[in-house]
């Protein structure tokens, strides 16, 4: 199975994204499709032996949308420029249409105003010069229609393909208004001057203008939702200084090759990932990790693209370039998350898919019902009234807000997470995180520093232990080796037994170091080494915050119960799962899940990977291993446990925001459509003017976006 992201252009509402998903899901070989209206991207999982990317692109283009492979790194700027250009074009179109719509609305409304008498050109007085008045309105509406031609080309095409979208609603509604007004203009020419009262040119003009305004605001807001990505992309420097043929040379970043020796001077950004070969410095990695303190670097240490060299000049060997750098991986991760869908969006997607055809039907039925109802009951065969109802229903009912409700909040939420060093890998993870009621914390490296120190030695065992442990990667082994300054004894037949300890042959004796760091020679007890790992400074605060969120906290460790409980007591954890073998950690998580807990597992080591995968949400500490981060749903770039409550808090706020958005989007349509269909009028209230319907429709999208943007105010670490 292969996964492909495609940029989709030409989508205007949730009906479009739903249509693309529907069409692709029917194609053989496609396993899953997720089309995101906000990011304008499709994430497609497919079997390349059955269907090719070209086939998928062709299928999308066949239904009227443009599908293109996402641009590579150098083209990203162009893509951003294109989006900026789109916003500029939309604003220009809005301004042009407003320039014509404002006078159009004025001449249409001024003669009708009852409260104040506005100045009005005598030569246009509708009752005296009805034809000139109608032609003046027509003259003003034509440029507006020309500017909004895209609603017609896209809308009618979609209608002909029997997949109407928002543009179809606008196109049908405004076309009905214009055609009816043209007919009445002809009636005026034919001598029926009263038809001057039945002109709806301004309705069409103002609707188009308001929709363009809504689209412009929407485009600007969409741009703001992806600011996190823009910030990340903007971090990478454009050039690098490399040493070639013993000469320092500044070259474009894309020309840096693996193995190049890169020179970075104080104040400059690290251009690619690599290992320091010469020099000492402190590097500000806050843009990647959120950690504000610069990190000391010397030969052998890794440096990462986009971090800032603060004090000394260093040279390093380029090891990861282009899309392989940590920065590129983070950008991809955030992009993927922003493009993914949360399960909560499923309902909105389902509704959007059938929404437009149903609205068309409601508009027709409501218009017909009023025409026939008034006709038969009071002998008032009022075409204009029925038309007003028809247009209002079409215009007020737009699934834009529904389509934007979830993805915009997820975009802002995941972006905000990234800004705080919390990489949320998918919308689903973001959604599930808010349900977490139990957090299982790995001890070593998660609660504690992960750098244990020798505190006591019983017996003459240090040389033996250090000689053996120097072949192990375990933090305890490293602590023993670090504590020993003498010569090592040669070791044969070294073996690390996961969860048990290490063993090997030294000087003809079989030496074994068990879990309690007890040293045995050919089965004879020689002594014991005691090590201690300090809790991180912020662990207690993080655990208190989690408890304040009514979340159960469980510590899980392979250490002895005594050691585990000592640490647990220090940080305020009551529920301890000690002496758990790495392979059993996932089982412990499963047990908790079976008891009805929604579990987040927080860990950093390879041994945590199965438990991270088993948990409802796996949270990897950023300083941990690649495997742990691969298995996790959320990665904390800083090694701070306080980011766990922050991530859960962000999830809760994002989901609350999505729910608010969905409430308003659904509520808007549930209330708006009956009003547009004349319910209030039926009960003695006013009839909704199509112009107000257009304004309400545009406002609904803008209000949903504005609400999503409120998430930008989220402050990391604000959980009490």
């Amino acid at each position, binding site marked *: 199975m292969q996964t492909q992201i495609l940029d989709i252009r030409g989508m205007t509402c949730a009906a479009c994204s739903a249509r693309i998903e529907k069409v692709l899901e029917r194609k053989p070989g496609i396993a899953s499709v997720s089309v995101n209206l906000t990011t304008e991207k499709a994430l497609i999982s497919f079997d390349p032996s059955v269907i090719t990317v070209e086939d998928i692109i062709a299928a999308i283009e066949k239904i009227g949308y443009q599908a293109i492979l996402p641009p590579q790194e150098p083209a990203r700027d162009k893509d951003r420029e294109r989006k900026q250009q789109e916003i500029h074009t939309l604003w220009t179109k809005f301004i*042009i249409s407003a320039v014509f719509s404002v006078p159009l609305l004025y001449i249409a409304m001024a003669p009708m105003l009852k409260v104040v*008498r506005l100045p009005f050109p005598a030569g246009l007085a509708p009752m*005296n*010069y009805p034809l*000139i008045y109608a032609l003046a309105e027509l*003259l003003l509406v034509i440029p507006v229609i020309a*500017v909004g031609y895209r609603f017609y080309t896209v809308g009618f095409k979609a209608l002909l393909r029997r997949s109407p979208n928002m543009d179809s609603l606008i196109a049908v509604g405004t076309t009905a208004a214009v055609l009816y007004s043209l007919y009445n203009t002809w009636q005026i020419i034919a001598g029926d*001057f009263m038809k001057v009262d039945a002109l709806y040119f301004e309705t069409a003009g103002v609707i188009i203008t308001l929709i363009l305004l809504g689209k412009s605001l929407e485009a600007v807001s969409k741009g703001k939702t992806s600011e996190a990505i823009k910030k990340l992309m903007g971090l990478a420097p454009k050039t690098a200084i490399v040493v070639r043929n013993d000469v320092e040379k500044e070259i474009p970043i894309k020309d840096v090759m693996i193995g190049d020796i890169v020179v970075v001077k104080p104040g400059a950004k690290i251009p690619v990932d690599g290992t320091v070969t010469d020099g000492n410095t402190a590097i500000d990695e806050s843009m990647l990790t959120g950690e504000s303190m610069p990190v000391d670097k010397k030969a052998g240490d890794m440096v990462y693209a986009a971090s800032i060299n603060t004090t000394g000049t260093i040279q390093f060997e380029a090891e990861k370039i282009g899309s392989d750098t940590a920065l590129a991986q983070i950008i991809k991760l955030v992009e993927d998350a922003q493009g993914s869908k949360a399960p909560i969006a499923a309902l909105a997607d389902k509704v959007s898919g059938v929404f437009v055809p149903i609205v068309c039907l409601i508009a027709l039925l409501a218009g017909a019902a009023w025409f026939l109802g008034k006709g038969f009951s009071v002998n008032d065969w009022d075409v204009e009234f029925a038309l007003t109802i028809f247009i209002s229903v079409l215009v007020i009912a737009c699934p834009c807000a529904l389509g934007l409700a979830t993805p915009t909040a997820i975009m802002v939420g995941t972006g905000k997470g990234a800004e705080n060093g919390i990489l949320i890998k998918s919308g689903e993870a973001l959604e599930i995180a808010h349900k977490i009621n139990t957090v299982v914390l790995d001890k070593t490296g998660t609660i504690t520093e992960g750098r244990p120190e020798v505190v006591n030695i019983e017996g003459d065992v240090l040389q033996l232990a250090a000689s053996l442990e120097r072949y192990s990667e375990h933090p305890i082994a490293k602590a023993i080796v670090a504590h020993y300054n003498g010569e090592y004894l040669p070791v044969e037949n070294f073996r690390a037994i996961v969860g048990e300890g290490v063993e090997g042959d030294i000087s003809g004796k079989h030496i074994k170091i068990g879990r309690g760091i007890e040293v045995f020679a050919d089965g004879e007890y020689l002594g014991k080494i005691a090590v201690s790992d300090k809790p991180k400074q912020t662990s207690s605060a993080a655990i208190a915050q989690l408890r304040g969120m009514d979340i159960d906290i469980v510590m899980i460790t392979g250490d002895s119960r005594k050691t585990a409980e000592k640490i647990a007591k220090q940080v305020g954890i009551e529920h301890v799962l000690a002496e758990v073998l790495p392979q059993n950690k996932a089982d412990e998580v499963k047990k908790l899940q079976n008891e009805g807990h929604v579990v987040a597992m927080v860990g950093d080591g390879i041994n945590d990977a199965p438990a991270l995968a088993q948990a409802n949400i796996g949270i990897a500490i950023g300083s941990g291993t690649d495997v742990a981060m691969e298995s996790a749903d959320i990665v904390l770039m800083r090694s701070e446990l306080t980011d766990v409550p922050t991530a859960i808090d962000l999830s809760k706020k994002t989901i609350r925001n999505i729910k608010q958005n969905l409430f308003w989007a659904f509520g808007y349509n549930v209330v708006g459509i009956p009003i547009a269909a004349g319910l209030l009028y039926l009960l003695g209230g006013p009839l909704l003017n199509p112009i107000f319907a257009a304004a309400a429709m545009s406002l609904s999208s803008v209000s949903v976006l504005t609400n999503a943007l409120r998430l930008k105010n989220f402050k990391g670490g604000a959980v009490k």
Partner: protein
Amino acid sequence: MKKAIAALVVFVVLGASSLAVFHNQLDVVGNGAVKAFDKMVQALPESSLLDDREDKTAGLPATSPSAWHIYLPGDSDKFVYSQNTANPNVINMDVFLEIALDPFINAGLHPEQLPENYQVLDLSAAPKAVAIGGKLGDKTFSYKDDEITPAESFRHIASFYRNTIGYHAEMGHYNIDLGSGNMFEWAKDIRTNGKDIVFVLNPEPFIAAGVDPEKVEGWTYAQVPAEENGKMVQVWKLLKPFDLAVS
């Protein structure tokens, strides 16, 4: 985009210029009013339309220059309009209704209490009448080959004083505004409209002069829709319709 904007600007400028240049041709109400007036005049019996130089029986003395007098059925009321507004007549009115005062006097009118611009004509040869109308302006009407016709005179009025011409949609009537809320209306289509001509009077001055509007014989006191300060309102009027019996 710039080209498109330029094209739109050119389009709108051309469109607006065309509307200005062809304003008269596109004036369906003004042109329709002249046509309908012409048809109405043609439908009048020969004796009902007189040049006042010939109208020796008219209540108003001959004026110089002349006006057209349209006698309505019953011969008690007439509509008078100028043949050339450049030369004012003795009562300084270019268009006016000349109506018999007897029905109003019988309904309580004290003629001396009418406003000054309501000119009471107390002539021995005719019943008391009042001229209600006004001066349109001082434009000179030029006639082709000096042939002064009723239709041509009205065309000049409609052309020079277009803002006085209107259309009363509910009745299917064109009208000429005589000022002070008074109007002369004629049917857009005299073949189908039962009320070919209607005199419309503002009842207020008459009520102020003692008239009970409900009791004016031959006149109907009713509410009609009218545009007032840019909005449509229902106003009370005294109405006198005439049917020219044209089919």
